[in-house]
């Protein structure tokens, strides 16, 4: 019964982990399977339905807004509401920005996609939210990596917050129009009633901001991580399953891989767990054997679960491991450079193994890449080869993730390259 309750709680409402603690004597006990009584948890409710008033308030706000933006996140994926979001955008022509967990809800190569929002988000997403007069947020929690300074977030905007968890609404900032309910259901209702014209002036303004603030990096013959992710995005046409570890490589993957489908960008998000990427990729390929799976890992992160090379080899799993090798705990080094005067403390991985040798030790083919000219060939070869493959990219060591808004900053407080 406990196990059934645990699964029920884990999978309904706002999905999440449940811990089941089974002591040894219980493990060794004999049980007879119980008859299937319904699960009865008086303290647990699987979420409410949005009221008609809430829906009407949203529709009313949409009618009056001139500069609306959608901010969507992991909750949309949990609800399986990507289709409904796409239908909503088709009807309303409202541009969309996502959290890290929301990548792929809407195809990122489309004109109305603003990419990721927040500390390492695109400049245009941050500008758009800063100038917006209505933020329609769906399945997000306004995490501090996105919001920065709460007082200065979206200063001109009314905020609509749609979420299945009532505790999230108003948790970080005050919300003008709260809507508690399942996103799929709420959006289906909205889609059946919404009827507003496209705000062409706003769309023109957005297109202008986008063209004036593209994602950039120095393309000067060194092996740049952004170049690798771009190439991967192009070659897999944004449809591969990408898992990441935690750090600079994670942010480059988030910025430069253009996801076309939801549930393809698998990352630990707010948990920030190094060592996640490779095992997650193993799970992903077992679940989706027909899709290409690439684990993008840092050299620091990869060594936290490096022994799983044995698992990949044992089950001959077609996981492609791309190590973005810069010999540092990159993200921390970047912060030490920017905020602590380059006092690099315990972030230099002075000794790294030769990852290709390690892979070969596990009987896994490996490729080393040190020049940009080798990138495309290596990616193609890795994807073509059966079974697990490791690619060790020796990227530019002190490259920083840009753009960046420092902690506590407002959405236009970008650190300029020169200050880095």
């Amino acid at each position: 019964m406990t196990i059934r309750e645990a699964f029920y709680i884990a999978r309904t409402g706002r999905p999440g982990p449940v811990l089941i603690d089974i002591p040894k004597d219980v493990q060794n006990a004999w049980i007879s399977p119980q008859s299937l009584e319904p699960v009865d948890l008086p303290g647990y409710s699987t979420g409410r339905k949005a009221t008609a008033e809430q829906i009407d308030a949203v529709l009313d706000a949409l009618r009056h807004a001139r500069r609306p933006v959608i901010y969507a996140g992991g909750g949309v994926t949990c609800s399986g509401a990507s289709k409904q979001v796409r239908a909503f955008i088709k009807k309303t022509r409202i541009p969309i920005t996502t959290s890290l967990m929301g990548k792929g809800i809407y195809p990122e190569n489309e004109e109305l996609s603003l990419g990721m929002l927040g500390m390492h988000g695109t400049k245009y997403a941050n500008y758009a939210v800063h100038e917006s007069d209505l933020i329609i947020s769906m399945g997000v929690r306004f995490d501090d990596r996105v919001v920065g300074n709460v007082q200065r977030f979206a200063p001109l905007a009314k905020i609509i917050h749609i979420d299945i968890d009532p505790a999230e609404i108003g948790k970080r900032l005050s919300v003008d129009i709260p809507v508690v309910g399942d996103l799929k259901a709420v959006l289906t209702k909205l889609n059946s009633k919404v009827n507003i014209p496209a705000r062409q002036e706003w769309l023109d303004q957005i297109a202008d901001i986008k063209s004036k603030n593209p994602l950039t990096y120095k393309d000067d013959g060194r092996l740049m991580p952004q170049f690798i992710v771009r190439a991967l995005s192009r070659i897999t046409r944004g449809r591969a399953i990408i898992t990441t570890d935690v750090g600079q490589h994670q942010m480059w993957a988030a910025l430069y891989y253009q996801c076309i489908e939801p549930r393809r960008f698998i990352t630990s998000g707010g948990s920030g767990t190094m060592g996640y990427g490779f095992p997650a990729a193993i799970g992903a390929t077992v679940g989706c054997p027909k899709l290409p799976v690439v684990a993008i890992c840092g050299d620091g992160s990869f060594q936290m679960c490096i022994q799983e090379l044995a698992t990949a080899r044992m089950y001959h799993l077609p996981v492609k491991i791309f190590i973005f090798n810069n010999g540092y705990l990159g993200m921390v080094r970047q912060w030490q450079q920017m905020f602590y005067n380059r006092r690099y403390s315990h972030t230099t991985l002075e000794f790294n193994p030769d990852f290709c040798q390690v892979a070969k030790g596990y009987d896994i083919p490996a490729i080393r890449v040190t020049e940009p000219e080798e990138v495309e060939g290596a990616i193609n070869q890795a994807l073509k080869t059966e079974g697990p493959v490791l690619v060790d990219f020796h990227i530019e060591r002190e490259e920083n993730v840009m753009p960046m808004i420092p902690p506590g900053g407002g959405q236009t407080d970008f650190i300029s390259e020169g200050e880095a």
Partner: protein
Amino acid sequence: MQKIISILVRNHPGVLSHVAGLFTRRAYNIESIAAGETENPEVTRITIVVSGDEFILDQVTKQLEKLVDVIQVQDLKYSESVTRELVLLTIFVSVKQRQKVIATANTFDAVVLDISEKP
């Protein structure tokens, strides 16, 4: 600002720990707490006085409702409830002072529950 919250929870071990754990994690300050079985042996009532600003107190209620063991959360508004506080005082008195103390207690309708020699 203070709030009195009355919670109905499932009566089994570990529940109080979950509630206290939530308060600790989120740094909500418990001013006082009392728990006891209700007329339904499967349900316990926990009454908590918590302090904080309005935003924090709103979050306390919402976060409590998320706990699986919590069946119901009630915000006891001062104007809508009858409240009593109970204080048990131990006073060390010499034989000479005893009468005076008892007289004072009577003035304030305090009840003397016990008199004994040794503390």
